[in-house]
């Protein structure tokens, strides 16, 4: 599905040069469930942002669905992104002024999809994640677990093949965290590729493969035996 080749990311300020990623090589197949782990500041989020095309690498190649996107313009990236990639954030990032249904619909709003179809797809996905009864509520009226379910729904409502989750359980208690992980597990079983940054070894166990980062380098890759 995607392939990073000798990819580096360097942040420069006036005086300091920080190497966030140093010649990283990663390949992720379609249908995989990959966890990225590592201490704070090791480059996890930078890696996820580059995979999600929210940030661009300083050097190296990024092949997405066999296309090298490293030189693409922002609008080209935006176009690939909105059709293929869904995002889940630690802090949910729902818009406070919009209802649950409207927040989910947001992911379809910029896809040129007629309003009626948007409505039905939103309804379907809300049923699936079990928040249909909360459709008209505002995010502030929901618990953290419920908010994250809305975020998951938003990430997949556009039939995106790849979901990038940045510590999706970081702001949740263990019961709600479990719930969200099971939901991701279910999506992966249906064929969605998932790349997840996490601190929790328990949650990384849901993934088939774990990539450990340290100081911008891939240090280990562990494969979990299937079954």
């Amino acid at each position, binding site marked *: 599905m995607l392939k990073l080749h000798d990819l580096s990311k360097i942040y420069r300020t006036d005086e300091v040069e920080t190497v966030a990623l140093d010649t990283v090589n990663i390949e992720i197949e379609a249908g995989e469930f990959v966890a990225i782990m590592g201490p704070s500041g090791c480059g996890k989020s930078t890696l996820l942002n580059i995979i999600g095309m*929210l940030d661009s690498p300083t050097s190296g190649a990024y092949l997405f669905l066999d296309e090298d996107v490293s030189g693409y313009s922002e609008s080209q990236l935006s176009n690939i992104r909105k059709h293929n990639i869904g995002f889940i954030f630690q802090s949910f990032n729902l818009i406070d*002024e919009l209802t649950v249904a409207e927040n989910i619909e*947001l992911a379809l709003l910029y896809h040129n999809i007629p309003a009626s179809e948007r409505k039905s797809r939103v309804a379907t996905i809300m049923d699936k994640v079990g928040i249909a009864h909360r459709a008209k509520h505002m995010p502030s009226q929901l618990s953290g677990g419920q908010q994250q379910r809305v975020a998951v729904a938003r990430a997949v409502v556009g039939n995106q093949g790849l979901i990038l989750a940045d510590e999706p359980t970081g702001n949740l208690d263990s019961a709600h965290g479990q719930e969200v992980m099971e939901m991701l597990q279910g999506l992966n079983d249906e064929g969605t590729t998932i790349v997840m940054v996490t601190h929790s070894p328990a949650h990384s166990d849901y993934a088939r493969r774990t990539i450990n980062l340290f100081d911008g380098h891939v240090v280990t890759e562990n494969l979990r035996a299937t079954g």
Partner: protein
Amino acid sequence: MISNYLLAAWRHIANNRLFSVINIFGLSVGLMSCILILIYVRDELSYDQWLPDGERLVRLHTAYYSPDAPPFLTIRAAGRMMEAIRNYASDQVETGLRLVEVGVTVVRGDAIFNEDIMFADGTFFDVFQLPFVHGSAGTSFSKPMDLVITESTAIKYFGRTDVVGKNLTACCLQGSQLEVQVTGVIRDLPENTHLEFEFLTFLDPSMFDFAPNVLNTWTSVNTYTYFKLKAGADAESLKKRVDYWLNNESPLREMVEEGVLPSERLQLKIMPVPDLHLKALRDAGNIGDMKPLGNNSMVLAFVGIAFLILLIASVNFMNLSTARASRRAREVALRKVMGASRRQVAMQFLGEAVAISVLSLLFALVAVELVLPFYNMAIGRQLNLVLSDDLPLLITLVSIAVLVGLVSGSYPAIYLSRFLPARILKANQSSDGGGQSNIRSLLVIFQFAASIGLAVCTVVIYAQTSYARSMDVGYNYENKIVLSGLGATAAVDQRQTIVNELTAIEGVEHVVLSSEVPSQDNENNTGFTLLEGASEGLSESVVLNYYTAGFGFFEAYEMEMLAGRGFDEAFSSDVIVPVPEGDDRIGHAGVVINESAMRRLGFSSPEEALGKTLRADMFRAGTFDLSIVGVAKDVYFRSIKFGIRASVFLNNPGSLRVATLGFRTHDVAGLVREVERVWKKILPTTPISREFLSEMIQAQYQAEEDQAKLFGIFSALAVVIACLGLYGLASFTAERRTREIGIRKVMGARVRDIVGLLVWQFSAPVLIANILAWPIAWYVMSEWLDGFSYRIEGHYILVASMAAGTAALLIAWLTVAGRAWKVAAANPVNSLRYE
């Protein structure tokens, strides 16, 4: 504690440049406008306030009404009124005063000047206690022909001011030269008085025996008439007495038609002298006062604009402060945790607002210094601002600044001080609830409604002014030079010679004579009686205005004749030849009437009027039967403000005072030199007075144009300040919504989707502002336009409204879009990681 507040305030100002610049700049411009308007208004209000006993001085104004003509208004009065009223109301009136203005020439060595001499009753200095430089009221103005001049006139003629006893030669009163001795010198009249004269002469009534329509008349209005009231009397009580006198005791009862009260034909108004500058305009009619009058409603309008501008600037402050509240929420919360009360926090923010406002006042004062010369040029005044000698003004300005600070600071202070520390320090929730942004929207709506309203008014005022200027007046005023002074005794004999010589100059197309040229206006009215045929009975007389037009006048001015002809040398019988005194014969002459006069006389077509005869009393020339030889199309002989009068054109050589010289040449300067040479050769003792007619016409609308310009400048400033506020608000809103923008971008929104979103958010208030502003502007401007007899149509207001509304929307879009673009183009990653 104070220093801690000051430090926090200063760092806040320094660290938030956009916020501070918008606030300080906006308030400075607001205060600057306010100061400029304030000193203008203060000057307008200061007129004649300085006169000793000013509250006891009044002036008599006259208004004539006739059934089917517009009223004739004037601030002058008939010559006999002063004495009659003074004697009748002697318990209220201490003394009376008449002023009569006479144009003369005064000689100094080789130089000759045209001057106006003000003849005044001996009571002048009892009424107007003007300060003397040399001499005194008792010694310098005690007998007929005593001459008091102003300091600058003394310097102009003698080079110094102690000139009592010196002689001046003036020409001419009743055909003879006068040798007059200067008996006193007064200080120059200040700018802020309605009075205007350089020469003041003790009036001997017998001097005007030759002209009974000046002093010895109940109906001709040629004197400025003042009264000084006794203590306790006022204008209103005197007005009541005068009204009673008019209908019950005055000789005017005999002069009106049977069954009509004098008050139905004539009104006498009494206006306090300190009110004259701002209120006399409504009584002044088309001739005006000694000098241009102020306009009360304009003064009020300007005060209103100053207030609006300040309010708009204050609203910016409120909006930006609350919009940025989240930035300072933490500071408030920590201060409260450390033990500050809500009151203390509120005081801190109020203090900050006042500090910013006072700082803005300093900038505003500097700005006023810089723009004052241009401002003075625009309004034709010499205003200045010297705060060190003007404590009241300084106190006023500081009070205004403090008040603005308190008003602007009040809402942010209340709002910010309400923050609960626990919520702010714990949750990273956006501390800005929906309610505050609603109030901000309301304030933005107010700002834009005010700005749009001002812009509509500006456009309408401008359109009306240029309409007045560009309207087809019905004659050609381009390429014409007007030469006055041909009525002077010395010039009368040379009149034909000079016309001939001027006509011979190369490039001159024609030279015609008349009593007035367009834009010059004298109210010359007399009764004309239509004789049905030659000898049938007399019908009622109709009062018409009359001019004198020499041969070729209508052709030179390209005035259209609807029937008949203009005056032509081939018809010498048209000319009025005075009937010798003592002779009872009725003279005969031709007359041209205009369309309005044709209708007033009851003719239904120009052809019907031709050949009919009008009988009229031509004062010293005798009684004449005037045969209508032509009907001229109506033209705007005077400013279109005053409409068209029913008028009669006579060819009376005794009244030819002005020459119009039409030219066609590229070398206008050369032509002017040649004209001056010819004039000097033929009339060496009469100074030339020459003007371009187009400039005279233009000058009629100058006051309105200046006002329109000023109105435009101040409303543009209001719009700029409102837009600055919107820019600031858009910036901070965009900033506040960065997380939302980030989410939308991750969901695939393009930059232009985001810009559209923000632009729409700010378009809504501007659209609502339009809906509010239009009806108000419509109402105000309709009222204003109703004051003009010739005005642009109402739909222009709608056009102006749409133009102003669209412009406001476009400006708002540009303002917001620029800012939104920057925020929308930013990488969403940064805004999504942390809250």
